[in-house]
């Protein structure tokens, strides 16, 4: 393949040397969570070993060092997604918390009974349930734009669903169940033509492509660190500054205030207004280290390499009799979801595990997608920059063999 340094990258991920059931690990569950490079692991060890204290609170040396690292990571995130300012980068637990934050602050302040929130039929539960909760609280209505049998958004239908009542559009950038990459620029332009803000769920897109929030012109962008080679428990809400300024705070507590008396509280400036309490300091630092690591490789190179992996895997999968790919969008990220005739995905998952191959079997937190394709579940191989063609061969050989065993 195009001289992508995959062997060098693999050597940076200690877990890839693990033996699973006495066989070399073939880790193809990256859409659920990615493995971590040594640099990320070391950054956390180093912080706790040398620089750790609470942030934003003390004048002592360690607090200053810890704060510098923490805020330095915020700048890295800002640059990574090309936000205009650090004020637009809010640290949260993950994509899920970010969406809930927007629903409970922006949503509660701006969305009223009879208003509409528009999503698509391929959303992860985390981009469905927070809006259903908001609808329950406010009397707003959730509208769902349909998908076709390739797993693509039916764009015309989506456009038709944008109305004067629509107050927010919230769509997945890249689907975790199907791999589909949505035409987000068109979506954003169409929504903005009616002054409707757009939230992009970037949980899957972020590890696979360069994301530029100013170029996209999205109003909110959310993602989780753990799918970006960073630790679990940390994620990002990007919001345009003017929107964030106008939003009420999310949780109350320390760090998010400027002045507190028993009569009134003055909220802190952005981004701290949305970061109540002691933050997840170490994992923020780990996220910064992951971004450094990715920048050194280059997101465009990663995207090109993964596209080759996906093409290779798709071609091989299509040759297997009885295998049906779920999600065949023209524009797709490195996810191969499939079902096999008369073999349940859970059996596929267990059988492949016995060969050291980790895939996901289930509904992938997208039950409406399963209903649409009339399958109870799918098997999903999801690729990362450290996967190889040889691993895909191991996967395909495993699938062939288990089909034989099931007979």
């Amino acid at each position: 393949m195009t001289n992508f340094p995959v062997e060098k990258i693999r050597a940076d991920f200690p877990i890839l040397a693990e033996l699973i059931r006495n066989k070399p690990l073939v880790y193809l569950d990256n859409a659920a969570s990615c493995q971590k490079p040594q640099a990320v692991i070391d950054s956390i060890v180093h912080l706790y070993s040398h620089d750790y204290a609470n942030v934003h609170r003390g004048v002592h040396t360690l607090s200053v060092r810890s704060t510098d690292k923490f805020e330095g990571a915020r700048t890295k995130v800002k640059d990574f997604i090309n936000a205009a300012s650090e004020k637009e980068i809010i640290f949260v637990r993950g994509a899920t918390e970010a969406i809930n934050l927007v629903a409970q602050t922006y949503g509660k302040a701006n969305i009223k009974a009879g208003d509409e929130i528009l999503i698509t039929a391929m959303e992860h539960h985390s981009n469905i349930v927070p809006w259903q909760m908001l609808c329950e609280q406010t009397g707003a209505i959730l509208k769902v734009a349909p998908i076709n049998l390739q797993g693509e958004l039916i764009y015309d239908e989506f456009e038709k669903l944008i109305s004067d009542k629509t107050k927010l559009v919230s769509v997945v950038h890249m689907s975790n169940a199907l791999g589909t990459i949505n035409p987000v620029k068109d979506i954003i332009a169409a929504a903005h033509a009616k002054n409707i803000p757009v939230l992009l769920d970037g949980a899957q897109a972020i590890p696979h492509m360069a994301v530029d929030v100013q170029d996209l012109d999205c109003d909110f962008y959310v993602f989780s660190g753990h799918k970006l080679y960073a630790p679990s428990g940390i994620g990002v809400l990007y919001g345009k500054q003017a929107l964030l300024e106008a939003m009420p705070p999310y949780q109350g507590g320390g760090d998010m205030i400027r002045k507190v008396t028993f009569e009134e509280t003055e909220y802190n400036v952005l981004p701290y207004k949305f970061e109540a309490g002691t933050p997840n300091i170490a994992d923020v630092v780990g996220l910064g280290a992951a971004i450094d690591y990715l920048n050194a490789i280059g997101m465009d190179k990663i995207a090109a390499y993964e596209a080759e992996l996906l093409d290779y895997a798709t071609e091989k999968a299509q040759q297997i009799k009885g295998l049906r790919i779920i999600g065949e969008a023209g524009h797709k990220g490195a996810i191969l979801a499939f079902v096999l005739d008369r073999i349940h995905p859970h059996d596929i998952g267990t059988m492949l595990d016995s060969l050291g191959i980790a895939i996901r079997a289930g509904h992938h937190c997208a039950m409406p997608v399963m209903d649409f394709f009339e399958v109870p579940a799918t098997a999903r191989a999801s690729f990362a920059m450290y996967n190889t063609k040889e691993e895909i061969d191991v996967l395909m050989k495993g699938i062939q063999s288990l089909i034989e065993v099931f007979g």
Partner: protein
Amino acid sequence: MFDDLRDLYQEVIFDHNRNPRNFRVMDNADRKVEGFNPLCGDRLTLYLKMDGNTITDASFQGSGCAISTASVSLMTEIVKGKTEQEAEDLFKKFHEMTTGKDEQINLEAVGKLAVLAGVREYPARVKCATLAWHTLDAALKNEQKSISTE
């Protein structure tokens, strides 16, 4: 190639998966209960025909993995002719076999259900095997509703 899995996927399991027994709707059922495992999407409907407290017929419909299909298929065979109490006792022994400690396990007591003992080594799959029995339990307690293993 799948040598490690021989304990889990015994030939009997493949056989019941390919040709599930008592796989039909029962129009005159006395009990009908749905079982659902939200984790994997397995769904089954269990039908029972009762004579007093004796199960005279059992059948099912639904889709699931090989373990869950084989488990419910075997169950419908084995509970026919059993009283409610006998079926509940068997459930208890089956439950011990799939989740219990080694010393509690009595493979003879469960007869041909012993082929499912292998799931003990696969915690992620235990629920596949027990869904059928939880559904039966609900049917015997006459809970005419959906049951879920979660």
